[in-house]
């Protein structure tokens, strides 16, 4: 996964809450609720602040590391993949594969 990849949150289609870095997400279109593992809450917080501009993966990783969140690249990649699969996060340049 390229560190230049620019991703953003699709905040119009989802509501989410995070507790201790674990997120619970509500899909406004389907009515489904998802629980996504740590550090999904931190990822969504960072992407929420970045808003529609999105954030490069590399920057996201650095930001979580600076904030003392888990910086394991493999774990982060898994969480972002899960967020993309659910359509919560998308590429700012092109759609995530679904």
């Amino acid at each position, binding site marked *: 996964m390229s560190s230049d990849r620019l991703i953003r949150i699709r905040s119009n289609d989802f509501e989410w*809450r995070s507790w*201790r870095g674990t997120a619970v997400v*509500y899909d406004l279109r389907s009515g489904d609720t998802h629980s996504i593992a740590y550090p999904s809450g931190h990822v969504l917080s960072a992407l929420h602040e970045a808003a529609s501009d999105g954030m490069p993966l590399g920057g996201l990783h650095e930001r979580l590391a600076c904030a003392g969140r888990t910086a394991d690249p493999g774990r982060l990649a898994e969480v972002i993949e899960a967020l993309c699969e659910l359509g919560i996060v998308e590429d700012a340049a092109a759609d995530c594969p679904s």
Partner: protein
Amino acid sequence: MRIRDLDAVVLRQRLAGPGLRLVTGPFVFNLRSRIPSVASGLAQLYPDFELEDPRGFADYHVAVHLAGGVRRFVRRQAIFDFDGFHPFKPLPAAQAFALLEWGMNWCIYAHAHEFLIVHGAVLEHDGEALLLPAPPGSGKSTLAAALMQRGWRLCSDELTLYDPGAAAVRALARPVSLKNESIRVMRERAPDAYISTPMADTAKGTVALMRPTAASVEQVHRPASPRWVVFPQYRAGTETALEAVAPAEMFMRLVQNELNYSTLREQGFRALSGLVDGVEGFCIEYGDLDAALERLEAVLGVRV
């Protein structure tokens, strides 16, 4: 006026005529029935409940009556009626009172969407509410009944009514539905409490209803602040095990016990998030009721 203030004849006449306006927490039910077991069930299980003026407003107009036709004579059946609509299949007439109880629950969770409603018991101590969300067969009602007997105020056995605007739980204080082995357990633990004659072969097995304490009914209009959510699971022969549940997991486990979260959509999500924000979560697995009660109250820091 309370149900105990009516003599048996007047109670039957009210039920057979315009109806009895029963107040249960934020709701008024207009109840009608000519079935004797319904009248006696109300007299025995709801004596401390307030009655509303018969000319006043009722949220729900319900009736339990006997099926007509050949069913008047053979295998008599009871029908639950809600404004002329029959949401359930008829049940044997011997289960008429249980049908009323289940029908009243249905009225609330199918219509009272000003509340987020979760399947679970609620008890209160010192203004703080303990929520016990769980599916049927988990030992929730047994735990709730035992806590009530220890002095906790029973807010509800089946329906948790969370008012998101007030961040508070509203009480119903209706009878506790005991199933199967828990009937014997509670009879032994609380020999002075009124427990109805068991109804066998219901959809939930053998069911008996336990009268709420008078103190629970007297304080039914007092809201409680959610403080703890405990997911109970009875397993015969197991040691008591109590563990913390993280907020996100608690949220998902509450969703599994929801009754109108899906209907409320994003409002339900926000309400449930607010509920989770303010509580500590635990799960308890127990095989011994005394050990479970002791452990639970120790962890919650409650001495009743």
